[in-house]
Each structure stands twice: as C-alpha cells, then as structure tokens.
C-alpha cells in the first residue's frame, strides 16, 4: 500500500468511528424523567397539590422541629439552620441568612425540601406536605399571610423579601 493509500484508509476508518460515536446511550421515556424534576423560579414542573399553613404547622412539628427548633430559630447542636428572622441584618457585622431574610425564590424552598428534607429521610414528604410546610415557614417569616395556602399556581408568585439582593459575580475586575 502506498503512503497515500494508507492515509486514505486511515481516514475512512476515522470517519467510521465518528459515525459510530452516535450510538451511545438509550433513549429515555418522558415518564422516567419525572424523578429528576427540579423546580425553577417560573414554577415549571411543580406537581399538582396544595398545602395550608395550619397543615404545615403539624408537618413541621413532626418532621422538622427536632433539628430546626420549635420556633424555626435553628438548633446549634444539630446543625439545623434558622429558617426565619434576620431581615435587615445582611449589611450588618452579624448577618443572619434565613429563608425569610436571604432566599430569593419560594420555588427554591419547595424544591429543596422536596428533594433533601428531612435530613434523616430525604424525599419522604408528600407533595401536599411540601406545599404545606413551605407555607408554614413563609407565613412564620411574615412573607405570606398566616391563613395562606400554596399550590403550583401561587407558589411561584410569592415575592421574597430579598428577591433583588443578588447580582452576577463581577470578577475579573
């Protein structure tokens, strides 16, 4: 085989490799993707369901208070952070970053509680319980009314106190 022929053969082999590279992985049906649902600020992907503050109070007492405290104030010994309080402290020498004072989106609270809480049994709450406990935390922080209920339509509309407290990393300066 001449050098030119050899190069042509190699080129054909590489071309075949590039075509074969398309065959990795198996198609996934949309139903299988439900378990990877993450909730953006738009609320797209929120499940059907509904939860009232009062129902959330019971869920909180049962599932959350042991680590986050009776009054959502946080418990140093468990590492459960404070969930409410701290408004007006972010520019002080002792900023208290909580759902009430710092979190910019209510959808983030729903998404996080649903995927990762409670710590000892993540992902174990029903969607109604997640709506309810989110409502309880937000009502306790005076973000929504004490008799409010949250569902897939109202949750994304909640205006968080620190909604505009963030901006993109300005580095490199």
């Amino acid at each position, binding site marked *: 085989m001449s050098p030119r022929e050899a190069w042509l053969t190699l080129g054909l082999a590489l071309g075949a490799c590039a075509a074969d590279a398309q065959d990795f992985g198996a198609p996934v049906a949309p139903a299988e*993707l439900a378990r990877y649902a993450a909730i*953006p600020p738009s609320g797209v992907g929120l499940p059907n369901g509904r939860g009232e503050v009062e129902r959330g109070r019971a869920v909180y007492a049962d599932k959350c208070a042991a680590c986050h405290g009776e009054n959502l104030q946080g418990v140093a010994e468990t590492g459960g952070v404070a969930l409410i309080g701290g408004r007006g402290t972010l520019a002080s020498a002792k900023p208290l970053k909580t759902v009430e004072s710092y979190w910019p989106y209510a959808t983030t609270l729903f998404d996080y509680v649903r995927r990762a809480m409670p710590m000892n049994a993540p992902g174990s709450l029903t969607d109604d319980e997640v709506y309810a406990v989110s409502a309880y935390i937000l009502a306790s922080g005076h973000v929504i009314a004490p008799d409010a209920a949250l569902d897939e339509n109202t949750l994304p509309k909640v205006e968080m106190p620190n909604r505009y407290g963030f901006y993109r990393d300005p*580095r490199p300066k």
Partner: protein
Amino acid sequence: MSSKEPGREAAPEACACREGMFPRQALSRRSLLFAAGSAALPVRTAAADSTGRYEVADDPTKEPGRAIGADGGYGARSQFETAARLVPPGANPYTATSLTPLAALTGNLTPSGLHYERHHAGVPTIDPARHSLVVHGLVDQAKRFTMADIRRMPSVTRKHFIECSGNTASEWARPKGKTVQLTHGLLSTSEWTGVPFSFFARQVGLKAEGAWVLAEGADGAVMTRSIPLDKMMRDALIVYGQNGEAIRPEQGYPLRLVLPGYEGNTHIKWLQSLQVSETPFMSREETSKYTDLMADGRAWQFVFEMDAKSVITFPSGDMRLPGPGFYEIRGLAWSGRGRVTRVEVSVDGGKSWAPAEFEGAPEPICTVRFKLPWTWDGKPAVLTSRCQDETGYIQPTRQSLVAERGLNAYYHYNGVQCWGVGPDGSVANVAA
C-alpha cells in the same frame, strides 16, 4: 504465551511468572509450597497483629519479610505513616468537611485517601451496575448512559485541583487557623479520567435555546447546581477515574462532574442527571449557600472560578524548626483561570521578594509545587508567598480583599498567607 520461549520448556509448571494467568490456582499452590518450606526450615515470618501492624525486626536483613499477597492484593501505606484527613469539630457529621494534610504531602498529587471532603448528606454506597447518567432537558433525544456505556467512550485524563470555595474562610478577619491543614486543607489535586461533556452533548443533540445545565447528584441531598453550558462544552469532564483507579466513594463513586477551576461544590458527586435548560434553576446551593455577601448587604451569585492562590506548606503553622541552618521553603500555587506563571517568596513579611522555583512545568488549572532554599539565621522571620497566573492576576493581600468585599463574603478567600518563625523556631499563623 508460547511454550517455546527460551527457558520455559524445561519446567514450565515451576515458573512463577506463569501464575498471573491463573491467579487463584497459582496463589494456592504457592501458599502450599511456602507452608511446606516453613515446616521443613522453621523461620520467623512477619505476620500482622490484630491492628494490622507488623513486628519490626531488629535487623531486616536477617529474616524474610512478609509474604507477597499478605496485604490481600491492595497495598497499604507504611504503618509508620499517620497523615490523615482532619474533621473539624462540628454539629453534624453528615454535612461536615474533612481537610487534606497539605504539610504532609510530597509532590503535586493528593493521595485519593487524603482528598478533602465536603458532603451535604453523608457518603452514599452506590452499586455501579445500578447507576446511570441521564442527559435530558433541551436536547433532541434524552438518553440514559450506563457505567458500561461511559467506560466504552473515548476517554481523557487530566490533572486538576479541586478547591472548596470555603477554603481559608477562617482568615478573613485575622490569622486564625493554627496549621496549613486548617487554613488551606480544602484543596486537593488528582489525575482525573473520564469523558468530556461535549461528547455526551453530541449523543443527545443540544437545542439552540439551551444555555445552562443542571447537574444532580444521587446522594441524600440530591444536590444540584446550574452550570453555564459554555463551561460544560469547553472543558467539563464526566469522570470515573482518579489517580489510576476508580474514584473513591467520598469523591462520587462511580461518577462525578469535574469543572476545572470552578468552586468545589459545583463538581457534583454521584452524578445521575444533567438537564439542559434556558435559565438557571436557582437551587438552594446557588442562592442561599454558595453566594458571597458584600458589605452593602447584596450578594455575588454564580461565583464560579477560584482565583490564583498560593501557600507555604513548609515551614507552616504549629511546626518547630530545630535550629538555625538550611531549610527548603516549599509550597503549592494554583489558579482556576489557567496556569500559574510566577511565585515569589518573602522571608521578611513582604518587604522583599525572591522568585521561587517550580517543580516541573505548571499545568493549566492545576497546582504546582514551588520551593526556595533558605538559610535561617535564628532571628524572627515572616514567611509568605504570592503568585501570578497567566491572565496577569496577582494574588491579593488580605487587606485588599477586605477593602473590596467586606467581612461577610465568607467564600473565595485567596489572600496571601504569612507564617511567623519565632527565635525558638516555633512557626505560627501571623498577620503580614
């Protein structure tokens, strides 16, 4: 293997080099032979006690050592070596960190068992046969990739550091950490092996409107971070190998994301899902946690790159120099924005500087070890280092960082670190 090789025909069954082909039979046969020999010629042979330690011979040249294979086939370091990760006291062991003992390391790579840790719900035990990665969202065809699929793909191997954005956060207000493990131990460097994300992108086909990718882990935190798609396409790796073997459970076994130069928490471990989207998801980690609070009460968000940084690891905090004389000052320098191009060392607290020597050529987005010979005259000294990267950026002082960001930022502290040497040789964390 051909039986016609020279020296093989005479007694092929007696040749130890054949045993590799039949490991189980060979091992048992050798054990029998050795046992027979022991019975005929009683010799003291090394055996581990219940804690795995071996008796130390008075003269190791006068008796055989331990039998080959006595380690079960996966070796351990010497029983005299004790460097370990340190878990700072904290409330919750499932959301804690462990720190790399930088002062005990040689060279540039971190042994896998000493790689720093930061977990959000402990370390899951995952069977690779049941693990897969799903790539979905704004793609032409959502696909699931098994570990077997991923190991079959064209692979790359690259050395990169990973640094937690909280590394050195103790030092914002004043010198605090007693040792370099406490001040800088959330930094480790590995050789990573895996597949570029861009290869996966070709398998699923990206839709034009995609701009972000949400990476999700399979741990109890089901941790998520939104990553810019241009970063994912530029150099993101889906890795299964670390320092020549499978990545450790603490590092995401069987699969993790590596985003060269980005803050550690974005390198999602136990990676199970990549979802392409138009906008970021604003997950808990990228809103309430890994954001940098400025003095005015507003916060930087999506603070990804780890800026250039260096630290002297020898001599460093809590050490004691035995007396005046020669020492080799040693340390590490790194940048999340490219290669380190220059490290300077001062022994007078920054009044004068000398260029340090690199150990090997600096690689992009990787640590490099630097060193400088120094003869200590026995008088108080303040050792410090500063580095520059290929963008021209120079590692700042603590004062300039505080002037820019205040004292509430917590993350991304990369100020120069000073170690004071006292007249008695003691080394302590001091201000410049």
